[in-house]
């Protein structure tokens, strides 16, 4: 039986998304709908992608190819908080590499990994368009600028507290 969790839980948002595009161009909604899938399931699950395909009237394979192409669609579960540190050229010129060394040490994991409690994933990413405020990162896509070890300690403490 076809899963329809997205339709049941997010129907108003689905309608809002579809309304942005011409009725005969529902495929344009694939990307915003995949974000909904990710919010609901934590990553782009097969069920979720099948549902997007049904809503857009296209083949599930086509949805999978879109999810596979764009780097922000997760193919597996990540930590509750995803810390993404830019380590592109401008950021490293301002010390991003040493900052990542510190972050790895603080969290006890390497970039690309998730803490054992499943709370925090640390990754390096390509340019995030905030080179003037490096070292910088995003935590679940919210910007954090001018990072220092002290600021990172505060940030991690705050993330841990949020769950208590």
């Amino acid at each position, binding site marked *: 039986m076809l899963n329809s969790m997205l339709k049941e839980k997010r129907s108003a948002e689905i309608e809002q998304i579809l309304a942005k595009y011409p009725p005969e161009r529902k495929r344009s909604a694939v990307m915003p709908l995949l974000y909904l899938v990710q919010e609901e399931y934590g990553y782009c699950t097969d069920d979720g992608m099948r549902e997007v395909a049904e809503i857009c009237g296209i083949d599930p394979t086509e949805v999978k190819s879109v999810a596979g192409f764009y780097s922000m669609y997760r193919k597996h579960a990540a930590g509750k908080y995803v810390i993404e540190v830019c380590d*592109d050229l401008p950021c490293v010129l301002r010390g991003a590499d040493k900052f990542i060394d510190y972050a790895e040490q603080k969290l006890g994991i390497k970039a690309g990994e998730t803490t054992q409690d499943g709370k925090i994933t640390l990754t390096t990413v390509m340019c995030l368009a905030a080179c003037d405020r490096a070292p910088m990162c995003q935590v679940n896509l919210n910007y954090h600028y001018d990072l220092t070890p002290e600021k990172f300690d505060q940030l991690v403490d705050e993330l841990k507290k949020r769950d208590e």
Partner: protein
Amino acid sequence: MTTPMDKHVLLRDEDVQDIRELAVYQANEGYAGWKKAVTSMKGEEVIGVVKDSGLRGRGGAGFPAGLKWSFIPKDINPKYVTVNCDESEPGTFKDHQLIRNNPHQVIEGTALCCYAIGAHVAYIYCRGEFKEPVQNLQKAIDDAYAAGLLGKNLFGTDYSLDVYVHLGAGAYICGEESALIESLEGKIGQPRLKPPFPAVSGLYNKPTVINNVETLANVPGIVLNGSAWYRQWGTEKSPGVKIFSVSGHVKKPDNYELPLGKYSIQDLLEMAGGSSTGLPIKAVLPAGSSSPIIPAVNFHAKLDYESMGTIGSVLGSCSWIFMDESVDMVWAARKMIRFFKHESCGKCTPCREGTHWALKLYDKMLSGEATMADVDMITTVNKQISGKCFCPLGEFSTSSMTFTLKHFRKDYEDFIAQGKGGSAAYRRELERDHHMHELHGQAKAHS
């Protein structure tokens, strides 16, 4: 040297507090150009004044905006405007500031472009990582609707306009206009064959104008005040003002809005406080990873489209990454190649495979296993990419190799001769990248 614009045209959030709010924006001539156009001008007249202003595309290519708009055929409907806010070039952060802090000016410019060409729908395509600043943009759009500045029958006329935000999901290639359109249609972001150009067959195969955020943010002032007003800044061929994103080894990295053609690279460096490390500046990338690097000896060049050409570089997107004497150009080139290898969309073999092999060669350099034969091989791989790709981004990937070798070949020779590869720092960098690469697709959020 202090910032020379006492009143900004674009970065108006630096002059006017809370200009992101509709009431404040309107109290500062906001939407006056929009009202003037819809109530008293024809679309062709709007195109005319933008043409006369000489405004050139600020995304990188520098194509005259008014001319682009004039290519839209009148008799094919519907038409679309798509705004390129996929800002992903390393070193570029100007559109970020505009949508976050001065979003109404972006919306007004977008609306004016729509009115000029007779479009009734616009999509502002923002990179997915802009989810946070997009909240400001979306609020501004919602407020504009509520105030009757967007929507149906604007200012009592029969002209209606809808503006939507569409979020990308992490793909540099979508800054290429035809890839952006593909992405907006719900497909993977790979460039289309041109012609036909988007002006004839763009979004949903309909006539489409694609402009960068900064380009459109110039338009409200031009429509309200006229082309002569805009031409008070800049040169004959490079009129107006431009935002310079300055990063790297400078004391005050930031966005600087300057009249084109007035200041030199050296002036820009001084405005940004000079070297932050005490070491002299060795070189600058004027348009991020995709641009020909400029050695310090050429810092006398003026900041405009023509002057940058005379020193063998480009104005491009104006993302100025300054690097001091400590920066080894072999390392810097590897960083840039890593970016392009990661971001290659995979459509063309020369770019997809070429960047892969180029990165392998640079990794070999950093690991300390390379010889001068590998430097020659870099040149060979580079030649196999250059001129053989479908879209400009493939070509961009070669700049870091071509121009670091051209201007800093000694860095490569010293790197080999002095055995600089294999240092602890380089080994750690390679390990980190390889570890991330191995985990790609496992615990990956996005990379």
